[in-house]
């Protein structure tokens, strides 16, 4: 199972909806994911061990896993492509 973190702030509903979309898209690609949502205003400590981090605003700098911007989930520009990229990244991870 792949572990994904969505890290942001006030956009709680957006992150929840994004989590659902990611799970569905990855399931369609044959990858099971567990998505965690974190509000960085409440805690900026992030546990290690994620396979992918999606940040709703630029935050992560020195992490081991890929980090991609979740902005398309907010402004809905390029959201479909982003979901494809996420599934692709996790599929690659899964088959590596």
């Amino acid at each position, binding site marked *: 199972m792949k572990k994904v973190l969505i890290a942001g702030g006030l956009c709680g509903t957006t992150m929840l909806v994004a989590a659902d979309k990611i799970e569905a898209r990855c399931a369609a690609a044959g990858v099971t994911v567990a998505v965690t949502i974190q509000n960085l205003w409440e805690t900026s400590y992030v546990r290690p061990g994620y396979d992918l981090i999606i940040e709703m605003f*630029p935050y992560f700098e020195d992490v081991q896993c890929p980090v991609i911007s979740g902005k398309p989930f907010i402004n809905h520009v390029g959201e479909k492509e982003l979901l494809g990229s996420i599934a692709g990244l996790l599929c690659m991870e899964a088959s590596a």
Partner: protein
Amino acid sequence: MIYADYAAATPLDPMVSEQMLPYLTEYFYNPSALYPQARQVHGAVERARGQAADLIGAPAERIIFTSGGTEGDNLAVLGTALHAGQHKRHLITSSIEHHALLETCVWLEQRGFRVTRLPVDSRGIVDPHDLQAAMTEDTFLVSIMWVNNELGTIQDIPELARIAHAGGAWFHTDAVQAVTTQEIDVEAAGIDLLTLSSHKFYGPKGAGALYVREGVPLCPMQHGGQQEHQLRGGTENVPALIGMGAAAQRLKERAEAMRADMKRWKTRIIQELAVVDGIRIDSPPECSADSILHLSFYGIEAEGMLFWLARAGIQVSMGSACNSLSVEPSHVVRAIGLSEEWARGGIRLSLGCGLTDEKVGELIKGLKETARRLRSADGLTNE
């Protein structure tokens, strides 16, 4: 720490807290009681009423104490709308009012009232011609805020009041953000109802005032006591009202110096940021209060700016504090027609007494560095 969110809340002036303290401890009496100690407290409350009235050029007896701006706006609109002798059903406001006003209007619409929300231009200004065109024989109230809480836009209150009166309507203005930068004289400006809130001018939270001109029919929203001439029942929040009165007096004493400082700081911030690509000044100095500056950062999410500014010890807001739980651009920013890429990057700076020239310099530096950081992280090129 650099605090630049004075439009959300101002720190309590030390002189104000000093005046409040005895009424939190020794003089705890209910001002409605009859024994001398209580009458002394009653006298102090009435002195505070006079101080608040003095700030806006009103007679003391025309001030109703409230719990703040939201209650004041509610009382002004609902109190006039629902008065038994008032049968008109149309009111006019602007599209950029505080939610306290807008939500109250929605509530009235749900009960059969009609509300016209006037558009604003790209600076947030209401065109008096639009108000003129919207007036009908059924209009009982026009409510336009004096200084917008997000943009700082200053409306032409005397002219708008004149048009309202010519059309047979009362005129209310939410002056919560106006009082620190504008000379307010309710008589000269022709204002019938005016809302104030103490924590915007270095007084305590939980206290406000509604000015009601003699002859304006108002019905109470809060029943149950004789207080405030039966227009707002309930035991007074004595320490907060004492604090508000003291804050009003202090503001009168130091307004000139404060305004000069804010003008100098806002001018400097605009000069240094207007030349930076990707930053837009949404509060032109010629039509906005010196206390508020709305900036838009192209292609950057405002929350990201706020987050990293907060980490750098700089405190600002996006939209209004009351609306900060949403990442969506506010109704104010939408109303002035900003495109999505600018609107999502809108933040509000608001200036006040705790700033210094040095802190303003640090603020400017922090804004530039944070924007640069977020742009390079996003891989953005400037517009």
